[in-house]
């Protein structure tokens, strides 16, 4: 599943300002509210659900990457966003490193396949160290969007 199928350019956040886990998740979900993909009255519930999922084990998967996520009945299709923290945020990752790259996913309760395919794409692209490095260096959401588009276009069909 390509990035363009679940990440809208308006929801992408370069230079996240939050410095802790709760704050960064709130900032990312907030960007989905601003892009019109999530209703403002769902924000608190979604943030809470994502934080609960984090309590089961951090979604910080190492190499400065985290994939916070939840299922939520308020969405009809998988929605996601990408955020970059210049300083990095402590996310209790498997390797103990701070997280700079965030891929946040909210999926409808009965679509585990879509969630897996989004994870597959994130994994495939992020195994490319150059792609990771360029993402971390991105200064604007337009830059990030361009990188995601390039990654989409380069992937084998």
């Amino acid at each position, binding site marked *: 599943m390509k990035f363009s199928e679940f990440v809208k350019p308006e929801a992408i956040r370069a230079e996240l300002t939050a410095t802790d886990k709760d704050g960064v998740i709130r900032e990312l979900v907030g960007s989905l509210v601003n892009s019109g993909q999530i209703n403002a009255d769902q924000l608190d519930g979604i943030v809470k659900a994502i934080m609960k999922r984090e309590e089961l084990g951090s979604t910080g*998967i190492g190499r400065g990457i985290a994939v916070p996520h939840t299922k939520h009945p308020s969405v009809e299709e998988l929605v996601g966003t990408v955020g970059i923290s210049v300083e990095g945020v402590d996310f209790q990752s498997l390797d103990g490193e701070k997280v700079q790259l965030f891929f946040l996913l909210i999926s409808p309760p009965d679509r585990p*396949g879509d969630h897996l395919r989004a994870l597959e794409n994130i*994994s495939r692209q992020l195994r490319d160290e150059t792609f990771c490095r360029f993402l971390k260096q991105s200064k604007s959401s337009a830059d990030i969007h361009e990188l995601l588009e390039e990654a989409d276009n380069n992937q084998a069909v």
Partner: protein
Amino acid sequence: MTVNNPQGIHLRPAYLIAELAGKYESVVNLDKSGSSVDGKSVLEIIGLAAGNGTELKIHANGPDANDAVEAIVQLFEQGFPGEEAAKAENGRV
């Protein structure tokens, strides 16, 4: 071994596999129809996109290879403990 989990190998099972594999000195690889990934890397494991019922092979190489394989096969056979509890708790695992 067969993936025995309705949600497939999503992030949490991948995390459990990598965490367990990381306890062993041996190199651990998971194979899905010919493509092989590092069993200690969550990022690589989720790249398999292994849904429920997928057949995977496990290979380990090193001084504790047998123990590593045995432990990971057991994790698969148990269907990744905590999944049901996590689901009941949260609606998302």
